[in-house]
């Protein structure tokens, strides 16, 4: 999968290049905004990691130029600034995700994969976390070689949890993933779906944090 990395810092760029390469991306690394736009014309990129503070042409400008040309390439902004305002601005300008520098490598890779999947460049239409495999096309879940069918709503909840494996999703966030199905979600709808999923997959696969939310850990076994 081709990935364009735009980062002017030599040390960080080199580190990211190596880590992303190891994770299976074909990384093209450029160090300023103008070159980035030129390289993008060649096409074929699945995702772009864009630094905001770039020489000559800033990351925001690159993003604006890109969106002007109606390019829907998923863009993850990488920046040293960490206030809510900065996040809101970059998401408003058309960024798909936002990470503050010094973020964990694993998180960066997971988010990039999620972006690619959402953009439809998915790898065969399945989602894998630990020994769980979710088929995104036929809505089946496979664990320990055993394949089960799940309802649409259960699928939506499980997909959200698996896409964000390792992170904790609040009930509100999970409810948002159901909005496609129904606008007034029951106050305990999520609990019901989680309960059903646990019955099918085993009690250990989804973890509850009381008062906070639910999570599927990467090391689910």
């Amino acid at each position, binding site marked *: 999968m081709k990935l364009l990395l735009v980062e002017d810092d030599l040390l960080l760029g080199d580190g990211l290049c190596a880590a992303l390469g190891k994770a299976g991306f074909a990384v093209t690394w450029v160090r300023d905004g103008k070159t980035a736009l030129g390289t993008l014309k060649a096409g074929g990129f699945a995702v772009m990691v864009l630094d905001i503070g770039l020489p000559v042409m800033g990351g925001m400008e690159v993003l604006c130029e890109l969106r002007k040309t109606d390019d829907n390439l998923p863009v993850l902004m990488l920046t040293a600034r*960490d206030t*809510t305002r900065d996040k809101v601005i970059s998401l408003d300008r058309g960024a798909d995700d936002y990470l503050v520098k010094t973020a964990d490598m694993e998180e960066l890779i997971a988010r990039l994969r999620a972006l690619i999947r959402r953009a439809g460049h998915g790898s065969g239409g399945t989602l894998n976390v630990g020994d769980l495999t979710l088929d995104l096309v036929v809505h089946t879940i496979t664990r320990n070689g055993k394949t089960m069918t799940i309802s649409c709503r259960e699928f939506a909840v499980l997909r959200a949890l698996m896409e964000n494996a390792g992170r*904790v999703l*609040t009930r*509100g966030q999970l409810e948002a993933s159901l909005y496609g199905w129904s606008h007034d979600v029951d106050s305990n709808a999520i609990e019901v779906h989680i309960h059903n999923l646990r019955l099918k997959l085993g009690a250990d696969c989804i973890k509850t*944090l009381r*008062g*906070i*939310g639910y*999570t599927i850990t990467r090391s689910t076994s």
Partner: protein
Amino acid sequence: MIVRQRFSLSQRLLVGLLIVSFAYWAVIAWLTIRDSINETYEIFDAHLAQTALALLRVTDPDDGDHHEIPTGGAPPLLEEISSQWLHLPERIVGVGPASGTPDGRNIAAAPVATGSAKVGSIRSLHREYGQKLRYQVWDGEGHLLSRSINAPTAVMSAQDKFSESVDKDGQVWRYFGVWDRHHHFRVLVAESHDVRNQLIRSISLHLVSPLVLGLPVLFLLLWLSINRGLRPLGALAREIGKRKSDNLTLLNADSAPEEARPMVLALNDLLLRMTHTLENERLFTANAAHELRTPLAAIQAHLHTAYTADGKTERLRVLDQVQRSVERGIRLVSQLLALARLDPEQALPDVRPVSLGEMAEAVCADMAPMALQRDQNLELQVESDLPTLPGNADMLSMLLGNLLDNAIHYTPRGGHIGVDVRRSTAGFLMEVSDDGPGIPAAQRQQVFDRFYRIAGQDQPGTGLGLAICQRIAELHNARINLTEGPGGRGLAARVSFKGL
């Protein structure tokens, strides 16, 4: 482009003072001239009347003795009053056969024939003035008995007492006509207005010219005294101006002029605060650099080991150490950034109604993976239907995040961490409790100091987390209390917000 003119204080004062004094002068001059005009008129009118009466007495000293004076004949006693009225000689000379033109313009030629040498010299002195005065003496039947050479043969004015008219040359004349007691003679004296006007002009000129001529002198004196008056201000400005940027000693407020003292005091206050801020900054930077050096030194040491490490296991162990040092550096930097952002805030920015419950949920969800890695049990309890709190959501998240971070780091594996958001008697309460080692009561205040760390810790703390919490609480008018956790174990950090 800004074209606005800027005036100095001296210029403003000078212009103001000049305008005021000039206006004052102008008013005084106007009043004085007006009064002199009135006075001049009164005096000249009195003079005119007196002249007429004197002429009448001369013409008819004994109740009509001179009724029969023939027209154009010279009254015999006119010379006598020349000593009483200084300006009469002119007319005495002029009196005689009405040979000249009615107006006085030919008067210079006329007297040569009749006047004596003495009278001629007086006339030359008063020629100007002589042309401005005329008289006529009429009898009761309307015969002209006598007149000055420059007087017309027609009646100059039919009115008695004072009257005025303009002659054909455009000269304004003022008349005084009077009858004798028996109504035998009528004396009519006329005087040109020019006489009065000249006097008034001369008075005005004498009054105004020194004022106008004195203006430059006044300008100079005002300028000098203003500059002298503003000298202390200039001295103060020079004292401030020649200061080096690192000189923050206070200004001497006692030597400053009264008007500038509030400014000096305000400046001193500013200097004091700047000194304080700079001192804090110096200390902070030194501490920060020192603290950052530690993880960097650790990385360097571990990397050195990594290069020389024998087996893969050994290398992985060392890299793990590098990872931990890096994490510590990252934490330190983000906390330094947070403090740098919080410190200059005087008031809370971006105040919006914040739902503490939702905020706590989001922060807990963010931090939960870290607790899960340590097999800790993280639990959140939010009282239902809590109203919102006016505050800065980013800062409140950071506050709770730091408290949680501490709890997760200092609580051993498998420990329990509880977050509780509820109402209190005074407002809201946000509490993070754990069953870790806690903090000895004696150190519960010191842990809020920057870079303070409890001795004997092997956790990668920065000593800044609680200082940040304290600052955010301050900005929200809230208080942070550290006590024992539930059941007298561990630590509970309680943030009390006022107002509900």
